């Protein structure tokens, strides 16, 4: 992270420094709420919103706040944002609010929120802080949804079950039944399934990274080979 470009911010937030898959932050909501895609998406979007708002606010006030009191100020900002999101969700998505329950207020304790405020937003311009909040939030939400999809597909044989909680009546038609008469696989829904699925996701990410690295090392050879026939063709 020598140079902070938007491209780097996005890549770090979404992949290289992904909060859930690399730093392994915010595991409590990640593991508890990822039992269906809809729950995961709901919590992911709420976290994304909180990250974005808190990053922008912290970046806006960074010249006003003395370094000695920055942490209490961060905590205040985050707590207020989370409470606002919680109230709004209770008012507009009551069904989803009932399902997510305690995990919405618990976003306050998700260390990735205060981590981004401290490590990034306090030192950077508003636009960059906003992009960082978006990238990190999206990275967290995507990991959450991937985990949710894996667990829901294996555990219940469906995807997007109860989508009406998030999208209203329209969501009822979104539910996908992957297999007819699937009896369900309880382990995937239970807490151990969360750990096992997260382990699989981490392994998958490491495999992809290792592949990419190997390809990068051998690129000169590979890139040179197809270049010649294409030239010959034209």
């Amino acid at each position: 992270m020598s140079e902070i470009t938007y491209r780097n911010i996005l890549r770090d937030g979404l992949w290289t420094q992904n909060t859930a898959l690399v730093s392994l932050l915010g595991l409590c909501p990640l593991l508890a709420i990822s039992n269906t895609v809809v729950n995961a998406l709901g919590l992911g979007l709420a976290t994304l919103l909180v990250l974005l708002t808190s990053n922008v606010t912290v970046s806006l006030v960074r010249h006003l706040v003395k370094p000695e009191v920055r942490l209490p100020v961060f905590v205040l900002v985050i707590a207020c944002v989370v409470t606002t999101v919680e109230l709004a969700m209770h008012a507009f998505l009551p069904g989803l609010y009932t399902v997510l329950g305690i995990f919405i207020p618990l976003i306050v304790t998700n260390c990735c929120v205060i981590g981004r405020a401290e490590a990034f937003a306090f030192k950077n311009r508003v636009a960059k802080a906003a992009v960082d909040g978006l990238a990190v939030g999206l990275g967290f939400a995507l990991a959450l949804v991937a985990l949710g999809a894996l667990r829901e597909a294996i555990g219940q044989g469906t995807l997007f079950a109860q989508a009406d909680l998030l999208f209203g009546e329209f969501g009822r038609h979104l539910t996908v039944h992957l297999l007819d008469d699937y009896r369900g696989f309880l382990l995937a829904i239970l807490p151990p399934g969360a750990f096992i699925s997260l382990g699989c996701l981490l392994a998958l990410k490491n495999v992809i990274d290792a592949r990419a690295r190997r390809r990068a090392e051998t690129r000169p050879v590979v890139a040179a080979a197809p270049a010649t026939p294409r030239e010959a063709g034209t």
Partner: protein
Amino acid sequence: MKTVARSMGISALILAGFAILGTGLVAVTHTATQDRIAAAQRAALEASLNSLVPVDRYDNRVTEDRLDVVAPEWLGTDQPVPFYRARKAGQPVALFATPVAPDGYSGSIQLLIGVYADGTLAGVRVLAHRETPGLGDAIEERRSPWILSFTGKSLANPPPERWKVKKDGGVFDQFTGATVTPRAVVGAVRRFLEYVQIHHERLFAPPAASARESGKHE
């Protein structure tokens, strides 16, 4: 010394400023959303009540015809339990309440029970529970029709001594691998019906006489 005190003072002021701003923001949001939240909660309650007793059976605003009752021995919780009364042309039709089965496999099971004025069950639903997924959670309507087996039952049908799961000599099915959960639910429903039978008159009394009164019995 002086500069230290000064900078501490400034920091404190900044912090206080943020605290006031933040509290203000939360207060504004709270005021802006509280009506919607109350409406959403009422709508959710009405929707679940209407799944037990059809809308055309009553004509009053059930969610406003409320009586809070404290009866830990019968209702499973030492908190006040709201009773909602459905009436048609002033005559009592049915009664809804949310008692608790305190002895579930992992903690309390919150129930919603509807009972007609003649003592037959309009139905039972589970509002909240922490029973084992895949075993005890068959008490949920969307997982198994078991909870519907209460509909139409009363203290006369089956007789009180058969208000048990089959394993205990009663008439209600238990689940494979989970007896504690249905036993807790059956027990809670029976106690609720007994409570309603004993206090029938007071529970169905017209709202003017008993509005918002807190029952002190038991």
